[in-house]
């Protein structure tokens, strides 16, 4: 009943309750409770999207205290897209994890998973700068916990590296928030935007916030923590981290950027972000080409793909409305395509590693004959990452390309094209290994569960289908709201 009227708080209540229950319930009930939770999450997400589409952005005052005294939640088109995206990706990853993890490992997986989802939803809906900080820390600890989950040397090292980088990033963010509060006397995004005052204090605050968030998004050259964490975690965790977790800080960056008019006042920072993006594309691609470990190839590809998303920032320029719209749409579509494709690719890579029992690329020989379904999933995801038509990645790059031509910043076109060639190179390199035949050992491969192959395939197919149905998410994010008004 209350779910029907206001689904927004339920998007937080369900995962938080899920975390509590899965900690306490006996083993056999955990998976059942999680399945129920996932279903109700999907229902709540769809209900809220329906509301947003029907009657515009929704504001929800927590505890009935209006912002800026209280904390408000806000659901607009962009937030809805991210909620739906995380619902789709997390539920498929959960399905995969159910077969992937042994029963006693699952016991601790579920609460971490639910905390992760709760913090993601909390961030998508947040409209308060300090609340975003707490959400970000919840996300960090959940993600670090999931990385450390395997409890071996490599994952422990990765989790410590990740934790330290993330802590520094969020402290930088908090320092920025402290300055903003001292200068404006408010923490709510809406009232900040309303009373926004440019001056040295705000400039330094914005610099700190952007710096902290860039570190948390693993933007080149602050990316060194990402490959070990994403490459060393258990497969469903890698997929969640690459597809969703790094998007959280990126999402915050985007909201601040547009709603607080940063693009208008700090154009040099925009160009800097674009340059960092270009650096990420080339460095990430180059490093992906040099890895011998399958999941590290995929992890470095994430570093490169973050670069494409950053390209939207220099293209969001005041006074060039059309180019900015295209850049906004292209950037978001890029992000969505990457979330689907990368989750699919990580799951497919995990399946391949189960087959061979080894993490190396060398071991993949003969795989294309033995596991065509998984190779197909890997390939489809690769098509989207390379940006070949008709995938979601292609549509996104096309939009970014048009935007850079329209705004006269042709050099980003060069970056886009060269970067795509580089991604093609590292993906075909993986393929080359799978077509190799060794012949000696015979085919003594293990077989992953069918559900694991199907989840990987579903995600990859979705990333391709996105190319045909790109209009749906683009319409969703273009629904009127404060964000769209602030967009140049």
């Amino acid at each position, binding site marked *: *009943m*209350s779910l029907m*009227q206001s689904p927004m*708080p*339920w998007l*937080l*209540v369900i995962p*938080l*309750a899920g*975390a*509590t229950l899965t*900690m*306490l319930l006996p083993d056999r009930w955990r998976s059942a409770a999680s399945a129920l939770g996932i279903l109700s999450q999907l229902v709540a997400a769809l209900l809220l999207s329906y509301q947003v589409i029907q009657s515009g952005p929704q504001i*929800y005052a*927590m*505890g*009935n205290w209006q912002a800026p*005294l*209280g*904390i408000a939640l806000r659901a607009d088109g962009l937030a809805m897209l991210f909620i739906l995206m995380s619902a789709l990706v997390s539920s498929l990853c959960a399905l995969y994890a159910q077969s992937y*993890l*042994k029963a006693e*490992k699952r016991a601790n997986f579920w*609460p*971490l998973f639910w*905390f992760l989802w709760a*913090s993601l939803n*909390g961030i998508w809906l947040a409209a308060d700068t*300090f*609340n975003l900080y*707490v*959400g970000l820390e*919840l996300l960090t*600890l*959940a993600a*670090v*916990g999931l990385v*450390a*989950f395997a*409890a*071996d040397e490599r994952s422990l090292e990765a989790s410590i590296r990740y934790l330290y980088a993330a802590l520094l990033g969020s402290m930088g963010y908090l320092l920025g928030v402290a*300055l903003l509060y*001292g*200068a*404006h*006397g*408010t923490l709510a995004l809406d009232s900040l935007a309303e*009373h926004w*005052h440019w*001056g*040295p*204090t705000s*400039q*330094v605050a914005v*610099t*700190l916030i952007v710096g902290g968030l860039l570190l948390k998004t693993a933007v080149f050259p602050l990316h060194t923590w990402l490959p070990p964490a994403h490459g060393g975690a*258990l497969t469903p965790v890698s997929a969640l981290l690459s597809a969703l977790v790094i998007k959280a800080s990126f999402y915050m960056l985007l909201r601040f950027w547009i709603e607080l008019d940063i693009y208008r006042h700090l154009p040099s920072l925009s160009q800097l972000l674009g340059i960092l993006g270009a650096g990420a594309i080339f460095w990430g691609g180059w490093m992906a080409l040099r890895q011998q470990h399958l999941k590290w190839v995929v992890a470095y590809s994430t570093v490169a793909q973050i670069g494409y998303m950053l390209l939207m920032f220099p293209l969001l320029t005041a006074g060039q409305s059309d180019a900015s719209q295209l850049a906004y749409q292209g950037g978001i579509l890029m992000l969505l395509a990457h979330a689907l494709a990368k989750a699919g690719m990580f799951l497919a890579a995990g399946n391949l590693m*189960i087959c061979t029992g080894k993490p190396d690329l060398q071991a993949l020989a003969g795989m294309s004959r033995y596991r065509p379904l998984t190779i197909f999933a890997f390939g489809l995801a690769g098509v989207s990452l390379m940006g070949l038509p008709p995938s979601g990645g292609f549509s996104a790059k096309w939009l970014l390309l048009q935007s850079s031509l329209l705004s006269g910043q042709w050099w980003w076109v060069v970056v886009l094209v060269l970067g795509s060639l580089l991604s093609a190179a590292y993906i075909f390199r993986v393929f080359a290994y799978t077509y190799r035949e060794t012949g000696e050992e015979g085919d003594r491969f293990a077989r*992953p*569960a069918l559900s694991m192959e199907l989840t990987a395939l579903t995600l990859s197919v979705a990333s391709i289908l996105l190319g045909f149905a790109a209009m749906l998410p683009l319409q969703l994010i273009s629904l009127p709201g404060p964000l769209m008004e602030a967009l140049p």
Partner: protein
Amino acid sequence: MNEMIDWLLLLGLGAVAITSLMSQSIFRAVVFFILLGLLLSLVWIRLDAPDIALAEAVIGAGITGILLLDTLGQLKKTGKLTTEPSPSRARLGLALLASLTLVGLLIWAVLHQPQPAIALHQQVADALPESGVDHPITAVLLNFRSYDTLLEIGVLVLAVLVGLTLQSKDAPPDSLPGLPNPLLHACLTLLIPAMLLTAAYLLWAGADRPGGAFQAGAMLAAAFILLHLSGTRLSPRRSEFLMKAGLVMGFGVFLAVAVSTLIGGRPFLTYPDGSAGMLILLIELALTLSIGLILLSLFTVAHTPAQLPGKRRQDEQ
């Protein structure tokens, strides 16, 4: 005079911070860090923030210091500490550059502070009568911004959850014996009740004075840790379920209260008319117990001997 006190405090703060950072011996660094907590709680009193002073005293001088000391003991027990590699020139340069830039930017920002457009403390004062408590900070934490507090407790639960995840199931409990010192045990019979009473006092004081669930919970944890160190084990292993239930109880009660009003058709995290004060006390009571247990678990959880790095493949499928 007042300004002189502030400058002297600041001087001490700087000296202690530098020493805790650059001291050769890591033990000395930790002692200085504990001392820094002490100075900071004085600073918070000077800043008219007694709630934070209280929290800093329990945390800085108590919990964090103990955790650091204990980890240090653990590192020493396992053998000679490896010699620290001396940081490279490049690292020094980078660190200096980053920190000087930061300090420069911050000073520039602070010197150009505009007049804030909104006076939030005024709004807090206006809404205080409806909040169910008389102490503005408790009102902010458990009513106006209770959503933040809910997530914050989530962070604590999460930390202990990760600790439990890393602990292997069949590992023996904490191997270190308690101290066989008769005077210690005699004093504890006096000190532990005093600590429990103080925790109760801090919890109760939170309604109209500085204090509250976190300070009380940390005090409780200090009492638990003292008991643990002297050899009395609140064994989590004997009844794992009960322990876990204790850890999430505070979070669970908080969430349950918030959801109950949601089902009753009111917004999330509201309190029914008139019962705000009572419900806040109930939540704080549950939070205090849970925070005490969580901090204790974070202290004990990492004491299990090394679980050999098992074959990674075993976890998969």
